[in-house]
């Protein structure tokens, strides 16, 4: 393809992406060095916002919460997604039905799913989970304070994120399983490898690439967690269950809080973190393109 043709074809998309992404990004970068309110030009304050962000214990808590949530959710979804994919891979006629059901939580707007989730736990609205758990355990489950106690609240937030992210992990791994060589598996079986050994030494190594990709997407997406917390953690700030995105929202957008400079500084710091995490993938793309 000629250079001129390339530029003609990519121009509309590039204009949209750069116009609507780079221009706002530049604005965020400028704001991060200013004290600024909506609708008025800011005053330069140098690194004050960055110093403010880095010394705010709230940011430390938000990072800890977000990273902890990412690790727990990713580990669970990788393991359980693998088990589910293996089970679904053996299904025959039921497969489309099971896949269809599992896809629902993935395609539903996350905030709507989280609202529906909150009704399961809120004792003001029936609290079906407490009810069923107490029926099963004869009342030993008690009434955990799902929305006001830090750990129970973390549990429902993590459960909700797993709920809508698990189908994605399962589908990716299911796709990866299609590429595992049947011959190698058969050879391992003839050599007397147990089922567990076949998974550990044949299947998992051969879908390493897919698992790495799932890890990458989960890292990018769970770090940006926001939607779920709005209905599930109304008291996130007090409980220490504020995610990085929610922190930015609370200081820079929510009514009465318009510290746009500070919010922008945290955005910039998050971008730096994401770039570091993305570095291996970026190198991979460049290497693949050069080859």
């Amino acid at each position: 393809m000629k250079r001129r043709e390339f530029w003609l074809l990519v121009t509309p998309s590039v204009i949209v992406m750069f116009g609507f992404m780079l221009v706002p990004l530049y604005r965020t970068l400028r704001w991060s060095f200013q004290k600024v309110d909506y609708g008025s030009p800011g005053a330069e304050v140098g690194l004050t916002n960055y110093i403010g962000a880095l010394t705010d214990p709230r940011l430390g808590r938000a990072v800890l919460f977000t990273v902890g949530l990412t690790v727990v959710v990713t580990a669970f979804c990788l393991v359980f997604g693998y088990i589910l994919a293996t089970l679904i891979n053996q299904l025959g006629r039921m497969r489309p039905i099971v896949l269809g059901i599992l896809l629902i939580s993935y395609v539903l707007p996350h905030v709507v799913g989280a609202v529906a989730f909150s009704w399961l736990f809120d004792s003001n609205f029936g609290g079906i989970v407490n009810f069923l758990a107490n029926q099963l355990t004869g009342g030993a489950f008690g009434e955990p304070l799902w929305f006001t106690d830090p750990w129970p609240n973390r549990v429902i937030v993590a459960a909700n994120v797993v709920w809508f992210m698990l189908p994605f992990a399962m589908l990716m791994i299911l796709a990866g399983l299609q590429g595992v060589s049947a011959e190698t598996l058969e050879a391992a079986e003839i050599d007397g490898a147990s089922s567990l050994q076949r998974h550990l030494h044949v299947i998992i190594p051969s879908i390493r690439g897919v698992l790495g990709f799932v890890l990458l997407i989960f890292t990018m997406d769970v770090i940006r967690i926001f939607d779920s917390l709005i209905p599930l953690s109304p008291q996130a700030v007090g409980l220490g269950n504020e995610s990085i995105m929610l922190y930015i929202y609370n200081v820079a957008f929510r009514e009465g809080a318009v510290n746009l400079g500070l919010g922008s500084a945290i955005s910039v710091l998050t971008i730096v973190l994401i770039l570091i995490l993305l570095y291996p993938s970026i190198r991979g793309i460049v290497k693949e393109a050069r080859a």
Partner: protein
Amino acid sequence: MTIDLTQVGDAAPRGPIAAASALTDSDGPTRPHRSRRRTVAVISALVLTATCLLMIFPFLWAALSAAKPTDVAFANPPVFSFAPTLQPYVDLWQTTNFYLYLANTLTVAVISTLVALVIGLPCAYALSRYGGVASIVLLVLALVFRALPRFAVVLPMYEISKSIGIYDTTYALAAALIAINQPFTIWLLRNFFAEIPRELDEAAMVDGCTRFGVLRKIMIPLMGPGILTAGIFVFLFAFQEYLTAAVLTDVSAKTVPVFIATQIGQNLPLLQQASAATVLLTLPVIGIAFVAQKYLVAGLNSGAVKG
């Protein structure tokens, strides 16, 4: 007498075991193997059924709450026998602007899907065929854009849209979503284009077709599944979006996810309307999950293969 009875009682359960061991002897090692396989099948069926139930449970519960009379809808402990009602749906339709929010959501999703495909297709085609540095740079930038924290672009968009007077309009929201989802669109379409052999382009160009002719007459017809997959995803992303819609809209361009999120913390009838809204929003989504399953899976897989 007592001794006799115990012996009889003991003999009964022993019977089948003896029979089974006799079978094992004659049948060789297949018998325990088969029964183990059956156990595995039962366990896997149980795990899958339980998972499916857990996955749809929040939705079922919302549907059940919407069907109850308002006074017991969210009663604690939950009420399981009640006279089903459609009142929340009627109220939702008559007392709120739900139809407006639904229309907004669909307008935004349709516009952003169409425009994303029209500008994304040529770009993705070029990215799959041009090996220069610019191509790599664009792909890497797109990956970075895909991973950006939303607020880094959405808050400036809020300010810009207010200052030029397009705040709270469906087209401003659609434009923002086109840009935000463009990186995903071009990556997905590029991976589909990459699977079409380049020889096809070359043969057509030898026959006198221009580059644009190749894209329009040869590539686009071949890209049917790819376009459908990308279209479904961009539509879903726009339809799902909460954060961007919450920041860029207020009253007239509000979307259904934002509406449902603002209903929480309200009083009971409003909450019940929110559960009715959840059901109305979920039903078409279930349709998408079942009908478009093939394309959803294909789209996710194409991402997995090429990263």
